């Protein structure tokens, strides 16, 4: 009986431990400065926004923006690779302080994380497809297998509104490989990445024919409730647009300057 009580008590203690896991803090900036490191979640498989170099470091447009924030706060930068299906959860749990991970700004996402205004980037949904198919409208995809990335929000829209059969993979390399094989007729993804891909000589016989839909701005986010940090990031974004940093980074990493970035630069000049 005594051992039974011991077991029960330790079980309750373990459960209590797991509940007290989350720590609440209203001032992220002070915490970051005290810890001396800024933890940012970025993509690691989405060239050129975030990808790996041979030494294993994550490089790209978004890591460069993250470095700007770390320099501003005077702390070290720590990049954590995230994917669409876990980036908001990591921020909620406090695993990362800031998330710059190609995330589209949507109202129901604003309920989960604190997205910073103004938006730092924008893209729409489009498809990469072999020229031989000659697709002209989104309706042409009805009933056909279309590759996608697991967790992307436009998967449901593409399949519910246009009747495409979504075949979702974990990462972009698997999706591109499946597209090349012919397992799917198209790859539904952000138009900015697809534009970069069509310039790649390896994908010379692929095109992006459809009108871009759901042109939606991207949002970088901090944890819900971190108003001080949100304000700081807002000022940083305005600074980036004003100085043309986003346009410069786009050119550096080989992306054609997007209309949104140009418009924001003009607006904040």
């Amino acid at each position, binding site marked *: 009986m005594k051992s*039974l009580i011991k077991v029960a008590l330790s079980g309750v203690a373990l459960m209590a431990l797991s509940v007290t896991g989350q720590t609440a803090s209203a001032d992220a900036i002070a915490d970051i400065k005290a810890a001396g490191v800024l933890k940012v979640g970025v993509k690691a498989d989405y060239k050129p926004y975030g990808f790996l170099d041979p030494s294993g470091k994550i490089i790209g447009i978004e890591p460069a923006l993250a470095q700007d924030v770390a320099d501003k706060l005077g702390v070290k930068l720590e990049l954590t690779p995230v994917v669409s299906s876990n980036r908001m959860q990591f921020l909620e749990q406090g695993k990362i302080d800031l998330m710059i991970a190609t995330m589209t700004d949507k109202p129901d996402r604003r309920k989960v994380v604190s997205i910073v205004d103004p938006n730092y980037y924008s893209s729409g949904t489009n498809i990469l497809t072999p020229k031989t198919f000659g697709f002209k409208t989104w309706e042409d995809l009805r009933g056909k297998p279309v590759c996608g990335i697991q967790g992307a929000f436009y998967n449901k829209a593409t399949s519910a509104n246009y009747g495409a059969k979504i075949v979702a993979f974990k990462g972009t390399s698997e999706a591109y490989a499946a597209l090349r094989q012919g397992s799917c007729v198209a790859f539904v993804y952000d138009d900015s990445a697809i534009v970069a891909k069509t310039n790649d000589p390896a994908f010379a016989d692929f095109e992006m024919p459809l009108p871009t839909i759901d042109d939606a701005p991207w949002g970088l986010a901090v944890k819900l409730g971190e108003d001080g940090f949100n304000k700081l990031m807002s000022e940083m974004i305005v600074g980036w647009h004003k100085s043309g940093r986003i346009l410069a980074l786009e050119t550096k990493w080989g992306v054609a300057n997007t209309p949104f970035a140009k418009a924001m630069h003009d607006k904040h000049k």
Partner: protein
Amino acid sequence: MNNRPYKTDMPVLLTVKPMSGDKFNFKLKLWHVFPVLLFVLFYSTFGFADAGPAKSSVFETLVRWMPLLLKGFLFNLLISVLAMGVGTAVGATLGLGQISQSAWVRKFAWFVTQFFRNSPWLVLLFFAMFLLPFEVEIVGVKIPLPDWLKATIGLSLPVMANVSEIVRGAVKSLPSGQWEAAESLAYTRTQTLWLIILPQCVKRMLPPWMNLYSILTMATVLASIVGVSEVMTLTGQVLSSEGGRPELLAPFYSFVLLLFFAYCYPIARFTVHLEKRFAVIS
């Protein structure tokens, strides 16, 4: 297995000629590395013929990324060792719980074992990743739980259940005469268990335990699905950095297969050796 050729007219007084190569005697020797390397080279030069002039050859690409992939593989091994350690410790306790005299402990241990045995490893991994907090606070000290540690805990759950079954099976396989003899010599139950039964069980448990370790090592690849930076994730990211060239797929995945084979095959041979050594004549 005796592979004597069966013939229906039996010539008298012919001596029996056992077939050579009865058992598979393949031992991985150092020189076996060379045919493998040759194969990789040959395949990659075949791939080189397809690549354009500006792209590096497949073999060059593989060699360039090899250090990173090997680091990732070592990480897999670390996860497997840790998960095995934790799983064995908790599983042994559960296994002993399954043979306890108290009905409550028995039922609880049985339920936990069956629950974790019947769940797919991948689902348990997702469970641990999403539902464990990212840091715990014990008496004011914050201990961070990084991704790979959560994956380790997730993988140790099915290990714990399987070890529990192995322990229970081993204890049950001992002849009941051992228990009765101990009882007649006035050993308490705890003494019987620790001094008589368990030492005999260790030998019986070793082959299935090593088999479980082999399965666990191969299951560490599942951690790539939940985002841990181990060898499969790295391979995917590397292929993405190289622009998704399709001719790189087979060499890179073959390389990963080779790494695991090189680690798990010796363990399998050693397990067979142990099984023979500890074979119980029943």
